[in-house]
């Protein structure tokens, strides 16, 4: 399940909803991405997340489908915010549930790695020295490339 929304989310409630009434799940891994207050030595005062409505959902659904193809998952949730955020705010939540913890961990990391290089979101940071678009990181490309099938 994927959701793209302006509003904040409650990680505990999301995780609880995903596992409620189920007793076949052995492990739940989650990742929460937050707005940091520093970037490249500059203080961040605010962040705006732009996205491509329609394509964003399509890409996130494709990434979820790929994870489900690779690992035996009982549940998957991706929630990604857009709009104006402040340091400390939640940006993204990825939750995976599986009978086996290896699958839950691998799939969760795969989802965040692929999402970062494939889902059409762009961050704009407001800093003490002005506003700027965040540049894509080589380390994110490398993290995503690890999951490419040879």
């Amino acid at each position: 399940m994927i959701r793209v929304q302006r509003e904040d989310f409650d990680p505990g409630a999301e995780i609880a909803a995903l596992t409620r009434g189920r007793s076949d799940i052995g492990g739940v891994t989650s990742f929460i991405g937050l707005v940091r207050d520093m970037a490249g030595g500059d203080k961040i005062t605010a962040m705006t997340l732009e996205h491509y409505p329609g394509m964003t959902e399509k890409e996130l659904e494709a990434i979820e489908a790929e994870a489900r193809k690779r690992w035996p998952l009982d549940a998957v949730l991706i929630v990604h915010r857009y709009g104006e955020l402040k340091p400390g705010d939640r940006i993204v939540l990825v939750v995976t549930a599986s009978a086996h913890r290896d699958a839950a961990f691998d799939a969760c990391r795969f989802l965040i790695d692929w999402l970062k290089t494939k889902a059409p979101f762009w961050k704009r940071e407001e800093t003490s020295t002005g506003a700027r678009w965040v540049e894509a990181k080589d380390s994110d490309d490398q993290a995503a490339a690890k999951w490419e099938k040879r």
Partner: protein
Amino acid sequence: MVRGTTYISLMKLLYFASLRQKIGTAEENLDPPGSVATVAQLVDWLKTRGANYADALNNPKIVRVAVNREYVPYDHRVTPGDEVALFPPVTGG
């Protein structure tokens, strides 16, 4: 067929993030000449539309393209009616 007389014959261009800012618009409906058959040709034609386009699209390494909401390579074919989005590498998550 007379080009540009119906809505479906136009191409919908979308620009995001730094490209949107440089070009100065988020969305426009255009009628590229008939010689524009691929993404690469479309980008080259857009660059002739003004310095803002030329600046935004100068470095193909940092211009990603989606046609009808799917990532495509530069040799992908484009046709009237397509939704073509141009944007820099993504930075979500």
